[in-house]
């Protein structure tokens, strides 16, 4: 048999079909280009210019913005603070969410209540909640320090001291994220077949920790991976609480990436420089997503 006889002709669309295909995808494609692709490309382009808001002209300056970033002490602090913030918020809210999910799953009563209570911060308005935190953490009238005073401890000035401000913001971040992670973990837990726990018991996993190691933790793998990535990206994006509570202060002790970007762009109107910060932010988020899809996913799905 000749090769030509074996090879099947590739299916060819008629011109009409192709046109219909383009027309059907057009609304989504246009929205994608206008809302996502064009702004992203514009930001990338802006990052290589000295454009300032309201300026009538701009010039191409190559990598100068990025060179300045390397020298910029403020940016260095923002990057370090963001990494520190993520390093606290991500593990604490992932492990905390998992622990709470396991507790709620193991309990017999009030599941819906606890789920709702811990999920409330996720659905509440971050700015309004930040105002509530401002009151809670207030050095003189705040309930937290009032409680500490009854034990004879002089509470620090949580949001105005450069020693505690990042920790305080991270605590708020944990509070905001833990309910979301909890709900994701609860969903993941219900997907684990009950029979595996019975099998583990029969196989000799008599302690709760053994069953957690043998069944729960490995089978939660895909959920955990998703929760870790989503929590890290959410934590890298921290902005609301910083903008409302500290404006990056005191003395840049709570300066984070997105707040630095906002300040450069909309306080100092240096849009080109601000775009360069955005690109750094984008690179971090993309790296996290890549880590999830490429490196980890292969080791966590079993079927």
């Amino acid at each position, binding site marked *: 048999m000749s090769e030509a006889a074996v090879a099947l002709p590739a299916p060819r669309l008629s011109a009409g079909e192709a046109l219909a295909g383009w027309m059907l995808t057009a609304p989504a494609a246009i929205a994608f280009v206008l809302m996502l692709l064009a702004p992203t490309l514009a930001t990338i382009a802006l990052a290589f210019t000295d454009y300032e808001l309201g300026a009538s002209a701009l010039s191409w300056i190559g990598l100068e913005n990025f060179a300045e970033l390397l020298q910029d002490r403020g940016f260095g602090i923002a990057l370090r603070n963001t990494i520190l913030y993520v390093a606290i918020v991500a593990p604490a809210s992932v492990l905390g969410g998992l622990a709470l999910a396991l507790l709620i799953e193991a309990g017999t009563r009030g599941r819906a209540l606890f789920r709702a209570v811990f999920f409330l911060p996720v659905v509440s308005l971050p700015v309004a909640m930040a105002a509530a935190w401002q009151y809670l953490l207030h050095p003189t009238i705040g309930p937290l320090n009032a409680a500490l005073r009854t034990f004879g401890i002089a509470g620090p000035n949580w949001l105005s001291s450069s020693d505690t401000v990042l920790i305080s913001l991270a605590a708020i971040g944990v509070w905001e994220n833990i309910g979301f992670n909890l709900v994701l973990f609860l969903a993941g837990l219900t997907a684990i077949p009950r*029979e595996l726990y019975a*099998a583990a018991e029969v*196989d000799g996993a008599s302690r709760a920790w053994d069953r957690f190691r043998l069944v729960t933790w*490995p089978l939660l793998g895909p959920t955990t991976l998703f929760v870790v990535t989503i929590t890290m990206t959410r934590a890298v994006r921290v902005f609301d609480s910083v903008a409302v509570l500290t404006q990056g202060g005191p003395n840049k002790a709570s300066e984070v990436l997105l707040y630095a970007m906002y300040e450069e762009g909309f306080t100092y109107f240096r849009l080109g420089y601000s775009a360069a910060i955005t690109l750094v932010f984008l690179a971090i988020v993309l790296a996290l997503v890549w880590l999830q899809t490429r490196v980890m996913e292969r080791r966590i799905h*079993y079927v």
Partner: protein
Amino acid sequence: MHGISVEGLSKDFGGTQVLRGVSLHVAAGEFVALVGPSGCGKSTLLRCIAGIEQPDAGSIRIGGREVTRLRPSGRDVAMVFQSYALYPHLTVEENIAVPLAMRRLNAAQRLPFLGTLLPGTRAARDTIMRDVRQAAESLGLGPMLSRRPGQLSGGQRQRVALARAIVRHPAAFLMDEPLSNLDASLRVQTRREIVAIHKAAGVSTVYVTHDQSEALTMADRVAVMQAGEILQIASPTEVYADPQDLRVATFIGSPRINTLAAEAGADGVLRVAGQAVGMRVAGSGAMTLALRPEDMQPAVAGLSAAVEGVEFLGESLLVHLRHASLGTPLVLRLAPEDRDTLPPEGKVALRFPIARALVFDGAGKRVAVHALSPEASLV
């Protein structure tokens, strides 16, 4: 050697009594099948024996030890689940090793990386792997040791579950419908393998199934369960030929046993549709006369049943009839060459040996029969 001994087990799920004082004794090395319709409590009974469910009342002894209040891990049993319940993240080898690792290694030795550095871990792991390989080889799993359950067929997963059960030489095997997820031909083949494994291991086995052919072919004794009770426990032949309860008679046997409404007078003479059928029973009142399809023959005299259809099954014929005066459907099993004995008009009389007649009283309990003649016919 001791077997499994269950005494007066009761279990209540939210107001429904799933087990009503069940007692079951499995001799050392015996294979007992629990069979019954779904919802009869057979799986619950098995899970109580395994310790996955806690009974409300009653006691369980396994291998001579009182285990009622012990956790599953302390009972020295192995269980095969309907879903196989393999750990999806572990390879075949690791899956089979779990029961050994859990018992022979302490928590520190089981730690990844670190555990291997502890004294004794290497030697213990080596013997575990040797035992695992041996169990895997005996089930033909040798070439699949490094695969994950997701890469195996249903039959192969089933073997891994079996290997995980036999690797530890437990005091009892508990199997919960292990074949029901397999296709028909594989099921018949695996039946024989499970029986062979049981013979080789000589371990007391409780096997739950809803499939009576599995129960009858595999078990030393069959326990027929219904509504949370064991109705009868006896050898497969006895359960089939000598059922003590009408529900056992109707559950065991395919096609279903023929049942005819009957009446015993004060003299004990049994009548079907007003006609005496040649026997006297102990008792009086409403009775049920039950006859296996193969225990009835077409007779020449009388015209009592209309033939509604004939099914050819290869080795036998099933003749579907309807009793003329009672309207009851009846099934007759004949040898294929006996087709000619059916009269051409489609009407047939039936005769049966009294010795094969099973009579049950109004409560469904078997009553003794005294034959007045060797044979009777239904007219």
